[in-house]
């Protein structure tokens, strides 16, 4: 018997096949799979990106993939950045941040915040949000960016867990 499991973004990035035991395990709680995918769609592939552009969203996700050692996350968003027209210079500048020149001040502010929230969330201060406002982000854009970086922190861990189960039940 087979439940027709649709591979979601977490399965794909974890290298989990749709008919694998791990995919079936995750689908014992189908609402969690759906809400995780829904979060991905809302934050990384929104129909109306609004105040935070798709390029900015994928730049943040690319950076999170690099910072956390989740190469497949970095590769996915590098590919999406290139689809949006990003060239080698921009990709390299995001990877080399903060030791990189030529980034727009707004993108530099977003990457600085990405690094802070990903690697040292307990050290954030009100000044860090003020810095995003100074770079032109509205309160709504600040929330979108916070949700995006937070979601990625969840997603890499969900990938790590799927991979760990996959090691055992291959």
């Amino acid at each position, binding site marked *: 018997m087979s439940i027709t499991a649709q591979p979601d973004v977490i399965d794909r990035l974890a290298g989990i096949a749709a008919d694998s035991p791990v995919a079936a395990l995750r689908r014992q709680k189908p609402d969690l799979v759906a809400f995780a995918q829904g979060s991905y769609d809302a934050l990384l592939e929104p129909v109306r990106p609004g105040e935070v552009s798709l390029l900015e969203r994928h730049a943040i996700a690319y950076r999170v993939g690099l910072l956390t050692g*989740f190469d497949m996350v970095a590769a996915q968003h590098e590919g999406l950045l290139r689809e949006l027209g990003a060239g080698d210079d921009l990709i390299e500048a995001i990877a080399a941040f903060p030791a990189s020149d030529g980034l727009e001040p707004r993108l530099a502010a977003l990457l600085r915040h990405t690094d802070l929230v990903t690697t040292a969330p*307990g050290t*954030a201060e009100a000044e860090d949000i003020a810095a995003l406002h100074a770079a032109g982000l509205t309160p709504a854009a600040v929330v979108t960016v916070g949700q995006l970086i937070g979601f990625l922190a969840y997603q890499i861990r969900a990938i790590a867990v799927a991979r760990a189960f996959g090691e055992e039940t291959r």
Partner: protein
Amino acid sequence: MSTRQRPRFSTVPFAWQPWTSTIAESDASPAQWAVLDEVVPAMKTNPYYLLLAHDPEPLRQRTGLFNGIMKGEGGSPRADRELAAVAASRVNGCVYCASVHARAYNQLTGDTEQIQRLLDEGVGTPLGERERAIVNLAVKLTNAPAELGAADLQPLRDLGLSDLEILDITNSAAIFAWANRLLQTLGESTTGDG
């Protein structure tokens, strides 16, 4: 940088203050108000949710994910999920989350002593065997997700937990990687009226 005094970990309820304006201080759209009625009707005046309502769809999806992970039927006992949440929050430094979920754990188990030590001394404090295995997995996933492997699941397997129970525990630690970041980087926990 400011030298803000951070509250100590405690089971006392904290308040939370955003570092930017919420939809209550802006020209909010009907959709922004509606998401609060839809997903957090009992907490729609809470500043945290008034802030997150700026972007309705991520709030809708994240709340569904959060509630499903923490309260969903089947899988691990809810106390195990609460313990993983407290461990992740203790490591990340989120006093607000740690307090809420420490109280939930205490209420579910009637055991206040282990959680109090975990809050006071940190995740290395002596715990029972089952509690230790849950905390170890939550801490590993919090601190070093890229290094997680099958060996990290084995101690809970050896204690007789099913794959679904273990998955629930990891999902709790993982959703607190998200929740702790929201609470700690969009505002600050304050003691009572602060």
